[in-house]
């Protein structure tokens, strides 16, 4: 039967390269009038790139595009519109100060605004949108803005609609509404392509599913003939052996306890939902999940950069049988702790601090009885440091957050430590030594220690950043996507560094996207989806499919899942 129908859009043998990276390799795709095609895949598997080629943002290196059976050359979004293809991007492109109708009419020679309003209403009525064409964009909710974007595309006469992750920013009710209008559009004979990584939505709304993995098209199946586990399996693929070293955790004891974290982003949407877990010293805890599931916010919350609605971040400073140090600057604090019986002498006698001077206390004779327990919630990064908590953080955005691109390696080494010393002047001697040491030990390729780091290659930039973060002998090391964009050798250097930290007793949190790496590197793997923890698995025994399933599971089953492992 399919042979009789002409696909409204067909992509044949599409290949697209960005430099050495192949974003799409020989992809074939068909979408027919009157159906919803879902494109399913993990992050970076080339879904959006592929659709950008259909909508004229990129031009394929190889392959052909057919629209209604005829070969088409799409060189610009305007070409795409002429072929009645419209794409609704993840990030809306609307003028805040204009009304919905003005935005919709923007760029197509100004018609009478009254006519535009009328036509917008007409389209809205036809498909069941709720919209006020005279409302200004800045007064609108995210879902209303999305409606404007969809109507904009319909207004221009599109028959093929491409929606890139349309549900990412919507509430459950809004998603329902969106799906119902999508269905009415399909009934009208239009083709809808929806890019997503949420399995339940795929099963709910689509007629067929095209699965992509690492830039390749794996299969296209009819939605009615498939189920979640089959889709997951196709999405994540078979396990690949990488031979990353993994030692047994030595003497694991709780280092950082995260309890019931809740947080919102700037728009007030929840980004962390009741996140709880414990990471031990001497282990690597992996965090898996589709990008934007709250990994970044979680790490930033721990680092003191993300405001919290509720929850606690408890840090166990491993102080047992360690001497009181200069970090406990205030005598009063030391006395308070002593009153609580927090200290003992090297020979085990309890301490009476009253009779001792500060110098005697910090001379190394007085030891802690127990680990010091601190709550890091609502502390700024500086306060965390001043508490003596050695927390290191390798952020995802290396040059925008972790380093200063226009500064040399020495000056970047100082970022964490420049406050040391009492004078108002900088001391570049130690940072310069550290810079030289890191260049030598991590084999950073750079013309010199004062070359701006933005001019180094991605791998070298990352070595500089990781090198700095581990130079302070951290008790907790958090790394977000530390091998993204790195070549194999540099990646393994980073894995080795993380392993070395683990062996020295550091609690390592590794946020990654490659499941194979997570499964070989990490002792335990925590999976997040839309801001919530969907499960914690043992890195040595977990199946890849299970991780894939947890990553796409929408409704998390409370703490039960986490306890099972």
């Amino acid at each position, binding site marked *: 039967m399919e042979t009789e129908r002409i696909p409204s859009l067909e992509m044949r043998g599409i290949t697209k390269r960005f430099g050495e990276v192949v974003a799409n390799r020989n992809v074939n795709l068909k979408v027919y009038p009157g159906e919803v095609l879902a494109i399913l895949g993990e992050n970076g598997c080339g879904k959006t790139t592929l659709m950008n080629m259909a909508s004229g943002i990129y031009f394929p290196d190889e392959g052909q595009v057919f629209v209604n059976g005829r070969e088409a050359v799409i060189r610009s979004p305007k070409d795409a519109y002429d072929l009645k293809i419209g794409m609704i991007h993840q990030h809306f492109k609307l003028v805040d100060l204009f009304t919905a109708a003005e935005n919709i009419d923007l760029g197509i020679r100004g018609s009478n605004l009254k006519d535009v309003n009328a036509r917008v209403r007409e389209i809205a009525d036809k498909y069941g949108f709720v919209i006020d064409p005279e409302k200004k964009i800045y007064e609108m909710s995210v879902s209303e803005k999305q409606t404007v974007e969809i109507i904009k595309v319909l207004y221009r006469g599109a028959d093929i609609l491409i929606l890139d992750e349309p549900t990412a920013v919507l509430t459950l009710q809004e998603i329902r509404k969106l799906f119902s209008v999508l269905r009415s559009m399909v009934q009208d004979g239009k083709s809808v392509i929806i890019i997503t990584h949420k399995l339940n939505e795929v099963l709910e709304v689509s007629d067929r599913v095209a699965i992509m993995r690492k830039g390749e098209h794996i299969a296209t199946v009819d939605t009615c003939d498939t189920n979640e586990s089959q889709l997951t399996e196709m999405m994540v693929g078979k396990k690949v052996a990488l031979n990353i070293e993994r030692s047994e955790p030595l003497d694991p004891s709780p280092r950082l306890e995260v309890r019931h974290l809740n947080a919102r982003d700037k728009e007030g949407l929840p980004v962390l939902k009741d996140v709880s877990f414990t990471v031990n010293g001497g282990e690597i805890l992996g965090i898996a999940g589709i990008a934007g599931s709250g990994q970044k916010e979680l790490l930033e919350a721990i680092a003191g950069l993300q405001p919290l609605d509720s929850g606690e971040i408890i840090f166990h400073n491993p102080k047992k049988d360690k001497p009181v140090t200069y970090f406990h600057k205030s005598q009063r604090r030391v006395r308070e702790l002593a009153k609580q019986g927090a200290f003992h002498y090297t020979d085990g006698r309890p301490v009476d601090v009253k009779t001792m001077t500060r110098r005697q206390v910090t001379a190394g004779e007085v030891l802690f009885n127990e680990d010091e327990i601190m709550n890091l919630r609502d502390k700024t990064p*500086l306060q965390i440091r001043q508490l003596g908590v050695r927390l290191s*953080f390798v952020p995802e955005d290396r040059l925008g957050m972790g380093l*200063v*691109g*226009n500064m040399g390696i020495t000056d970047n080494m100082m970022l964490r430590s420049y*406050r040391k010393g009492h004078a*108002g002047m900088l001391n570049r001697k130690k940072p310069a030594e550290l810079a030289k040491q890191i260049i030598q030990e991590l084999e950073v390729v750079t013309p010199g220690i004062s070359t701006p780091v933005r001019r180094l290659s991605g791998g070298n930039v990352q070595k500089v950043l990781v090198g700095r973060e581990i130079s302070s002998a951290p008790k907790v090391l958090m790394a977000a996507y530390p091998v993204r964009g790195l070549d194999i050798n540099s990646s393994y250097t980073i894995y080795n560094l993380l392993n070395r930290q683990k062996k020295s007793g550091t609690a390592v949190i590794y946020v990654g996207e490659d499941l194979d790496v997570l499964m070989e590197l990490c002792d335990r793997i925590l999976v997040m989806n839309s801001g919530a923890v969907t499960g914690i698995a043992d890195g040595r025994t977990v199946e890849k499919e299970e991780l894939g399933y947890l990553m796409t599971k929408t409704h998390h089953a409370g703490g039960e899942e986490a306890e099972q492992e």
Partner: protein
Amino acid sequence: MIHLAKREKMNPLAAWGIRLAAFVLGLIVCGLLAFLMVEKLQKEPGKILDFYKCFIDGISSQNAKSFFENRKLWVFMKNTAVLLCIALALTPAFRMRFWNIGGEGQTLVGVLAAIAVSLYLGGRKGEESLLPEWALVILMFFAAVIAGAVWGVIPALFKAKWNTNETLFTLMMNYIATFLVSYFLIIWVPSGSSALGKLPYGSLPNIMIYPEKASAPSNKYLLIILISLVLAVGLYIYMKYSKHGYEISVVGESERTARYVGIKVKTVTIRTMILSGALCGLTGFLIAAGLDNSVTTESVGGQGFTAIMVSWLANFNPLLMILTSGIIIFLNQGADQISTTLSVSGAFPNVVIGVMLFFIIGCEFFINYKICRSRDERKEAVR
């Protein structure tokens, strides 16, 4: 097809070569324009050398007996020093990517505050001063610095609190400063011209070592010139070797990095604008006590805006600003000289300045970008 691509980094020597070439090219174009626009030259084309000689004459008196009596040279250095001071004042803010274009107003309130002190505590001509001269000068200094700092910190506070746009805010503060001066002039000089005239007390040359030589240019201007040079070196050290300077650079490069390492962005913004405003106020003090002993709405005369260019041209390097401010003043005085020597209308000297600046600023484009053909781009991509 021709398109533009950003250069990675140019060899500094080559970059200076380009700048020099642009300067020379600018002079040649100015010469050609002179033939078109100046009647005297059209009649006697041989006098073109006179045209170029004007630039030299602009900064050096022909009949000066010695370096110390070369009045024009000292005026040149004095003007450079004042412009340099304002440019230096703006630099910490610019390094932080806080576009303080309120140098004019911040300097002007400095002048106003210093003159207010001189007027109320010193007095007008014929009146007895309440304070000894040195005390008056010190008070003027503090008044000017505080006034400038306040004028600078207001936009910073608004930026920190409500994220207002600092460019517009500092610009608007300039107008407020100007009208504030007009207002006080009406109060101080209720009748007639609204011109305050030179005040007798609170003058820097008066407390210099050789008061009897106070009117000699070398003596009158030396202190200002020295202060500006000390300031340039001091600010260079502050920006490059101090913790504050480091924080300013980090905040300027990326606020997210600053937050990540625990730098308080708001504190740094406010602190830096206090410094920037205070240095403008200091310049205001130098103008008030060292040069004018009076205030008008034109006391700063647009140098607050010219200083923005000085700072940018030097790529925010305080030491290079000595050179860039010198070049700007050199052109200004050369242009003035052209209008007297060649007796041309007021517009032509401005044309000369405009053409020269066009070349000087324009050449930066060729230092930062390269023009390549599309075919070259493919080669780049392969590499």
